[in-house]
């Protein structure tokens, strides 16, 4: 459920714009994103590859790759702007108050370090724990994320664990310092469905136990349906729709969200019936069209859509549901 309105959100990103250097000069790949995450809230950030969902999150802790940088915007975390923090302050946040879980546990874990040492590192660094205490805590964390025989597994190297187990270790590292916010970037994409179900269940369970906020980045709308409180849909570097999860699935308003939902095969479908699909392909990062980025693929696009960029406006008759679409906004006006 969304945090009460009077409560300040834990994370408040405003007007975040990210640029990439290309041969043709700098190009905007994330364009003025606004995103809030309340205390104890789980937010799904949904979008296709290249929509800027991962870059947005990486930029918060200044882990952007080369040639990509934040151009403007603020990102307040617990009242402080992450983008203006000094490097040493940031290091306290990174892996401390904000935990990360990445997509590929094999490449995110250091292959030549025992998982116990990788778990202890943030504890010793952020919490000034002694080695023995850190080890105790590491075992406790491994038990928390459901790894059997944590006393033995703590001595294992990453390659000795299965993919699902490695992702559990990644989550344990993300949780090591009791973060207030856990950012999970496609944490189950590389995993099989039965393992994915285990990980989803684990995160649901932990979030309640630890009362933390979670941002779950994914391309899979079905996956987050039962997992998050609120969803932000990204397309080509902008938030096109932002709504409580039930509201989004019941009343998708942006043509892109509607297209995405309609293109997911459903239980009730006839065999081999045509799926409704969105024509064309998403623009390449750095080659975003003028106006609404979705306009070239949008069946409802009007001339204004190719000229100006729509901003997020509240959807009439619901709380916390906002959409950035000229056509949808006009239709609401007419209906009202």
């Amino acid at each position, binding site marked *: 459920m969304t945090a009460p309105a009077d409560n300040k959100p834990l994370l408040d990103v405003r007007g975040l714009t990210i640029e990439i250097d290309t041969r043709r000069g700098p190009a905007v790949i994330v364009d003025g994103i606004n995103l809030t995450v309340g205390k104890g809230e789980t937010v799904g950030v949904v979008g296709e590859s290249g929509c800027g969902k991962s870059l947005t999150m990486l930029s918060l802790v200044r882990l952007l790759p080369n040639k990509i940088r934040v151009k403007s915007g603020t990102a307040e975390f617990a009242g402080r702007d992450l983008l203006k923090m000094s490097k040493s302050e940031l290091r306290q946040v990174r892996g401390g108050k904000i935990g990360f879980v990445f997509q590929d546990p094999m490449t995110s874990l250091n292959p030549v370090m025992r998982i116990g040492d990788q778990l202890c590192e943030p504890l010793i660094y952020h919490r000034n724990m002694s080695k023995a205490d850190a080890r105790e805590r590491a075992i406790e964390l491994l038990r928390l994320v459901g790894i059997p025989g944590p006393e033995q597994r703590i001595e294992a190297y990453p390659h000795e664990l*299965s993919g699902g187990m490695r992702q559990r270790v990644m989550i344990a590292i993300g949780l090591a310092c009791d973060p207030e916010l856990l950012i999970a970037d496609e944490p189950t994409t590389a995993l099989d469905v039965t393992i994915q179900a285990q990980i989803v269940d684990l995160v649901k369970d932990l979030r309640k136990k630890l009362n933390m906020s979670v941002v779950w980045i994914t391309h899979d709308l079905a*996956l987050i349906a039962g997992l998050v409180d609120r969803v932000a849909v990204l397309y080509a570097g902008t938030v096109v729709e932002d709504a409580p999860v039930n509201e989004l699935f019941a009343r998708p308003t942006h043509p892109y969200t509607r297209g995405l939902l309609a293109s997911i095969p459903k239980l009730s479908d006839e065999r081999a019936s045509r799926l409704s699909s969105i024509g064309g392909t998403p623009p390449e990062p750095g080659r975003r069209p003028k106006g609404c980025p979705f306009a070239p693929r949008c069946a409802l696009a009007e001339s204004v859509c190719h000229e100006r960029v729509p901003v997020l406006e509240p959807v009439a008759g619901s709380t916390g549901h906002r959409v950035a679409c000229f056509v949808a906004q006009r239709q609401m006006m007419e209906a009202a």
Partner: protein
Amino acid sequence: MAAEPLIKVENLVKHFVVRLGAFGERGATVYAVDDVNFDIFAGETLSLVGESGCGKSTTGFTLLNLQKATSGKVLFQGENIVSLDEKRMRPYRRELQIVFQDPYSTLNPRMTIGEVVGEPILFHKLATKAELPERVSRLLADVGLPARFAQRYPHELSGGQRQRVAIARALACEPKFIVCDEAISALDVSVQAQIINLLLDLQEKYGLTYLFIAHDLAVVRHISTRVGVMYLGRMAELASREQLFSNPLHPYTKALLSAVPEADPELEKTRQRQILTGDVPSPLAPPAGCRFHTRCPIAMDKCKAVVPEWREVVPGHHVACHAVEQGAAG
């Protein structure tokens, strides 16, 4: 389904031997596909589902004789094609095609799209050089690409467009049968639906038969006629789409279906899930008896020792599980 099958797979086995040690003196066997039986009927879409390492892709590759089968038969037009050498296999290659998962490595980066699609046509002498440009444009049109793309190189195309070219290349041979090996798994959600529609359209237009290998059950449910579930190299269950999704018999199928998320928050909140514990064992050392017994919620003593027989429990519904009664309707 009284018709004679297009392809009959009988007791297909594929074991890989991996060499270990400095001089390859120690060998270990990967039991990738073990004693798999199924038929594929003309015009249908048979899907193979299962988790990574279950042997579904290896089944597809072995079936096309792209990997040598360890034993067993694959009968196509009365010939056991897995016993043929490359030369005698050549005429069958034209009729049996494949589309791969990764759109970025499926096309030779040094060839233009026109060359990619035209090569099989010239090689199998399906058209003369003079007829080629027209053939290529027609194939590109079939997969929804403009003819001018023939001049382009793969790196100039998006993932979805490349996958369309890969489909056009397979179609160029005028095949009867196409293996789609995770053909849509690597694509963006909005593009996946386009390619699914394309595959369905082409099936209707050319009367194609598909073996659709995938792990996304929602997609499989959408496009299949029949579905086979594999676990650790063995078939667990095979039934019509309706039977499998509404009345799964094998405990693994049940768990797999229950793990698939639905795009419906209300349903997801109330849904009872059966979550399997543990991981898939290594195919280097599969468990004895039923390979699923280590994770099975209803495993009995018998399951640990005896390999369950592959039986047709009701017409058209095959399952390999000791706990399923003959004639079980669910």
